[in-house]
């Protein structure tokens, strides 16, 4: 497995909005595509690009983004699927000879943690696109799975693209997780009741719910409503109340950054809280601010 099991066969700039030196460069590599499946890889990348382009706020920032596709032919198709995993799940036991060694159960504990050789993915992307900002690896398997870190890795399952978008939120924009636990609501975990620490540096969570000084005061939907928008009545577990406001309302909802109380998120839901949701208004604002330098001048 590894570089002996494939080779880079080509690089295509599939979204070209200008010189790499001036634009935000995303590089997408493939793993588990044989040479005769690279047409499929191109199609899978196009599918991702369509989803990405339609995801707010990237739709409005599109002129500032380049996307590069690196075609890598692996000896075998797919990914490793260990027969056993620490979560007691079972797999086919297949060992696929692929360039980036993609595997489910990547940490030995979680079946859906689909990982690859991120060091090789990073260096391969850098070798072909020195101006790379964000790397992604699409793995040629329709089993649901993915992972984050410096390289967002996800399968071709229709919902796995959400993993890539969430992880890009972390890697590219420094977003915190907006869910209020580690192991889950009702898991009985301890140590997550009350956040009483310093103000989080991440732009999408806060310990300060004062509407005049909250870090996202410029995008509050209606400051006159007052903050917080919701408070958790039982800090020993997740807040179970519904959203008293519309889905896109920006206020301050208690429960975020792994704590049930004392830390707030901007909207009831967001892709950084649960996959399958749009980015909240604050995340969209921060993405737009971050990518502003890459946009062409007006009229260009």
């Amino acid at each position: 497995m590894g570089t002996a099991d494939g080779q880079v066969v080509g690089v295509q700039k599939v979204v070209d909005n200008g010189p790499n030196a001036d634009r935000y460069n995303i590089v997408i590599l493939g793993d588990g595509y044989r040479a005769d499946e690279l047409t499929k890889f191109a199609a899978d990348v196009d599918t991702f690009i369509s989803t990405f382009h339609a995801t707010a706020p990237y739709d409005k920032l599109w002129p500032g983004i380049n996307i590069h596709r690196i075609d890598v032919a692996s000896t075998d198709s797919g990914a490793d699927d260990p027969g056993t995993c620490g979560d007691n799940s079972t797999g086919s036991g297949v060992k696929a000879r692929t360039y980036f060694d993609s595997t489910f159960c990547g940490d030995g504990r979680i079946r859906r943690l689909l990982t690859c050789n991120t060091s090789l993915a990073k260096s391969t992307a850098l070798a072909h696109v020195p101006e790379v900002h964000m790397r992604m690896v699409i793995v040629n398997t329709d089993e649901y799975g993915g992972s984050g870190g410096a390289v967002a890795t996800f399968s071709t399952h229709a919902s796995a693209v959400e993993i890539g978008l969430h992880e890009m939120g972390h890697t590219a924009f420094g977003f915190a997780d907006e869910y209020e636990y580690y192991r889950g609501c009702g898991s009985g975990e301890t140590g997550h009741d009350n956040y009483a620490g310093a103000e989080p540096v991440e732009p999408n969570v806060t310990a300060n719910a004062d509407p005049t000084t909250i870090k996202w005061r410029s995008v509050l939907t209606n400051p006159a409503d007052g903050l917080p928008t919701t408070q958790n009545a039982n800090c020993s577990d997740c807040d179970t109340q519904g959203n008293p406001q519309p889905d896109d309302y920006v206020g301050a909802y208690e429960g975020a950054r792994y704590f049930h109380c004392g830390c707030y998120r901007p909207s009831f839901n967001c892709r950084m809280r649960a996959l399958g949701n749009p980015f909240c208004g604050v995340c969209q604002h921060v993405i737009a601010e971050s990518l502003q330098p890459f946009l062409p001048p007006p009229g260009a």
Partner: protein
Amino acid sequence: MPSSYTHTLRITFAHDGPKLEITNVQRVAMRAPAALPPAGDNQAGYWLEVRDSKGALLYHRPIHDPLRQHVESFGEAAGAPTQRLADAGDRGEFEVLVPDLPDAQTFRLHGPTLAPAGIGTAAAAARLASPGGTLSAHSFDELRARAGQGG
């Protein structure tokens, strides 16, 4: 942040337990994401900053979990809640992108100075909430020279 810069420093860090060091610096003709304002004088989490010779802040951006203390589990199927588990490894590397600004004098990486404490413990919660300290500090002259020498 001034728009009149042409290059960005790609700084690679390696961490091994408590040890954190720069292993490579590249100076690339590219732009970096825009600066984001600090959350205050005391912040929890990881962030990088660039200051001029007078100590004025020129650039600031948050970084999420660069040392990969945890892994995210996305559930058994689409739509399942996301969870976090402690990462068994304590070695790895990460990159940061820092604009090579004309007046840049110092670069610092900030983050929790308390020792890694796994997950689900009082120590882990304290680490999440603690104000960040300086984890790495370098002059821009040093970084540029290193990039000029091939990393």
